Each structure stands twice: as structure tokens, then as C-alpha cells.
């Protein structure tokens, strides 16, 4: 396959002795959407959290193996810099409650001590909110608190916040599992439009979502990467029996 932005080589992740992710070697194509599927507890979130070095923040957590971002070993880079290049959107929408919508979007600059000036910030806020499909709804309320929005709007605000610092990759950890179907649809649509500038890695336990939005799919089971490949191919003609069982709803 063509251009790979992120690669793992023999990646294992541990909570103390417990091996949650076992020896995963995969690569993620640039500017495409890759979905990681699997039943609850299969290690997909842990795997995702390794990719921007969030995993190591948990007490007793450690990893083994290599992660390469554009060929550079992620574990030799500063975690803070890694996280500016690889953004993350969480399961529960979590805008900063004390900040306005405007300040939430540019939090990645302001709290990192980067001052771009009022005008530039305004431009970034507008651009990011437009990309996140939220601009039309909030353009007159930019100075209201982020927490005053609805669940789906909050999640789009979080996506805008992640986009604002121009990451190369955005990790999404079941971004719609706390949302209603309408908000979910909205977010799925916007994920589809993001890939002009960013690579999206989406964790989901909802396989129809993976089918709808992703270009590539990966299936994890009990900490192991069972199958990876083109989404359409995997959904119509899975290589392994276990993948087929998952896709047909027999496990998970």
C-alpha cells in the first residue's frame, strides 16, 4: 500500500504484568480513515492510547516494541510534542468547562504558551469549527461556555479543538458511543470530510460504523490483531473465521 504515516512493530502494551495488547505490527495509510474494531475489552483502546503515548500515563502501564511516526521512533520523542502531532478525541465529550467555545478551540495554543494574536486565533477558530461542522450553530455564541452545548455539539467542539493545532493524525476513541443517532450521523459525516489534511484512526465497537466511514479496517480480538485490510474486502470476504464471526454478530 502507498504512503504510511504511522507504523507499529511488535507493539505490546501492559498493565503491570497483564498484557493487554500482544505483539501488534500494523501500519496506517496517510490521509485515510482506519477503523479498529473488536469486542469490548479486546485491547483496542489500549492500543490506540499507545499511539500518542497516553497509555504510559496510567499507573503501572508499560509498552514493548516500536511505534514509528514518519519513520521516527515515537518513544524517543518528547510525549508533549508527540501529542501535538497526534491529537485525540475521547469517548465522552469533554470540553474544558471553565472556557468559552472560542477558548476551547484554541486551548492547544494558549495553554502551550503560544500566542498567535487575536486575528490569527479568530481565523483558526473559524476554520476549525467549520471543519468540525459546528461553525453555523455556534458562530454567534463563541463566548458562551463550552459546557452549555449539547452532547453532539460538545463532541464536535472537541474535534475542532483537536484539529486546531494542525495534527497529522487524529485518534478517535469511540467518539459516538455516548451520543444519540442523529449526533452520531453528524459526526460520521464530518469524519469522512477530514481526510484532506489528517489521518484518522477510529476505534469503534460498532462495526456498521466502521463499515460506513472507514477506508481500512483492523480487527482485534483478545489483545491480538487478527486481521487488517481494505474495509470493503474485510466486510465482504474476511480472511479469518473469527473475523467473520465478529462481523456476523456471533461474538462481541
Amino acid at each position: 500500500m502507498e504512503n504510511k504515516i504511522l507504523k507499529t512493530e511488535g507493539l505490546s502494551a501492559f498493565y503491570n504484568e497483564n498484557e493487554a495488547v500482544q505483539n501488534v505490527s500494523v501500519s496506517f495509510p496517510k490521509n485515510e480513515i482506519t477503523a479498529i474494531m473488536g469486542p469490548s475489552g479486546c485491547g483496542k483502546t489500549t492500543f490506540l492510547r499507545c499511539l500518542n503515548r497516553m497509555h504510559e500515563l496510567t499507573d503501572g502501564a508499560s509498552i514493548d516494541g516500536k511505534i514509528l511516526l514518519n519513520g521516527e521512533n515515537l518513544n524517543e520523542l518528547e510525549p508533549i510534542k508527540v501529542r501535538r502531532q497526534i491529537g485525540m478525541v475521547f469517548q465522552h465529550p469533554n470540553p474544558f468547562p471553565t472556557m468559552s467555545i472560542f477558548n476551547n478551540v484554541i486551548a492547544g495554543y494558549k495553554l502551550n504558551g503560544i500566542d498567535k494574536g487575536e486575528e490569527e486565533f479568530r481565523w483558526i477558530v473559524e476554520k476549525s469549527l467549520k471543519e468540525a461542522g459546528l461553525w453555523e450553530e455556534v458562530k454567534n455564541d463563541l463566548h458562551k461556555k463550552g459546557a452549555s452545548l449539547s452532547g453532539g455539539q460538545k463532541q464536535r467542539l472537541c474535534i475542532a479543538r483537536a484539529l486546531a493545532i494542525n495534527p497529522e493524525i487524529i485518534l478517535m476513541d469511540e467518539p459516538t458511543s455516548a451520543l444519540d443517532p442523529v449526533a452520531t450521523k453528524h459526526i460520521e459525516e464530518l469524519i469522512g470530510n477530514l481526510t484532506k489534511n489528517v489521518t484518522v484512526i477510529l476505534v469503534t465497537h460498532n462495526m456498521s460504523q466502521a463499515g460506513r466511514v472507514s477506508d481500512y479496517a483492523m480487527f482485534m480480538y483478545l489483545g491480538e490483531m487478527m486481521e487488517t485490510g481494505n474495509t470493503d474486502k474485510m466486510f465482504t470476504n474476511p480472511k479469518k473465521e473469527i473475523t467473520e464471526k465478529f462481523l456476523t454478530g456471533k461474538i462481541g
Partner: protein
Amino acid sequence: MKNIEKRKLKNSVFKYSTVAIAILALLPLFFIIFYVFRKGLPVINWEFLTSVPKSIGESGGGILNAMVGTLMLVIIASAIAVPIGIFAGVLISEHPDNIISKMLNLSVEILQGIPSIVIGLIGYIWIVRQMGHFSALSGGITLSIMMLPMIIKHTKETLELIPDTLKESAYALGIPYYNTLLKVILPSGLSGIFTGILLGLARIAGETAPLLFTAFGNSYLNVDILKPVAALPLLIYNYATSPYQEWHKISWGASCILVIFVLTLNIISRLVIKKWKIKY
């Protein structure tokens, strides 16, 4: 059917007895406030608030020295206890398994239970004796020890309620730890921390025992933190135990002011909790 009637009766008996007992519990509070206001309010006038006590036998005089003294003590105590308390609370909530946190947790509980007179004695031995004289500073330091547990506890409890995801989303933006703490976590917990400070203030404002051996009291107006100062509770104590009718009146007036001060702090803290409540 009979059974249901019986249950209904039991229900209503239970309901009304809880109401009755609750009212019983409220009575002393209302009587205290009522009595203090009835005795104290007539004494309070402009002169009472703006002059210092007169000598025995002269009528008039006020409690300016005590109000200024209490203000100084409260400010000194907060200046010490607020930063230390907040940092300690942050440490406990951020690293609960740390050995220092565990010790802090335990000491907070113990410190809260130590009688204030004992803390006063400690203040006397550690500070007054070292300095060689009574002072507002020693009183303030002693009161700050009493204020600490309140602030640490409230800070810790507030921060523990803040969801971890908030911190994670800050990390995910590459925001360093100190800014995550200062600009994301602490502002989210501001109302709780502020409430802790106000309740701590309300607590120490009425303390008499620790001041007996530290701030000592002063019949004159003093704003030098290295000299003894008067304080409302000290003045109340001294004047109420004196044999003079005039002084008893002043004591009631001072009590009234103190009660108003403490009540106001409590009410403000309620409002703060309501108004600054953070939605996640």
C-alpha cells in the same frame, strides 16, 4: 385493607416525627441568633464601629481595634494557609498513593480534632516564646494551623470530583502538566476551593482560645503585625467576664458583629457553590 391502613398510619407518624425533630434541632440556632441580635443590635452605632474602647466608667467607646485586629489575623492566617492548603490538597488528589499524601490525609483528620487551646499553646511555645512577645503575626500563624485542614480537605474533595477525562484531554493536546493543573484542573475546582477558604475563615474568625496566648489583645488600635492586637472573640471574652455593665453591652455588640461576619461568610460560600457550579 386493614393492613394498608396500618401502613399508612405508620408512614404518617414517621413523617411527622422527623419534621418535629428537625424543628427541635433548628430551635437553638434560631434562639441564639435572635438573642444575639436583640442584645447586640441596639448597641451598634457609628461610634461603636469607629472608635476604640474607653476606660472604665466612661460611657461610649467601640470595637474598632478588635475589628481591625480580627481582619489582620484573618488576612495573615489566609496568606499562610491558603497557598499551603491548596498545594497540599492538589498533592493528595493527584498522587493519592504517595506516602506523603497518606501522611497528609491522616494529619488533616488529626489536626481537625485537636482542641484549639492546645494549638494556641503550641503557638505560644513555638512562636511567641521565640519572638519574645505577643503579636498579630503569632496569632495569625496559629490560626492558619486551624484553617489548614478545612482548605486541604475541600481542595482534595473538589479535585477528586473532576473527571480524569478532563486531564487526559489536556494531555492529548500536548499541554504540559503544570498548565493542565493551573489552567484546567484548578479553575474547574475553583468554587469548591473557594468554599473551603470561606468556611475556614468562618471557623477561625470566632476562635478565642488560640489567641489568648498569641495575639493577646490590645485596648488600642494597632496595625503593626509584630505587636499584640485585639480580636473580636478576645474582646467578647474579656468584656463578658468583666464586672461592668457597660462592657457587657459592648460584648453583646461585638458578638453580634462576629455572628453577622460568620453568617455572611457562610451565605457567600453557599452562593459561590451555586453560582460557580461547573457543568462537565
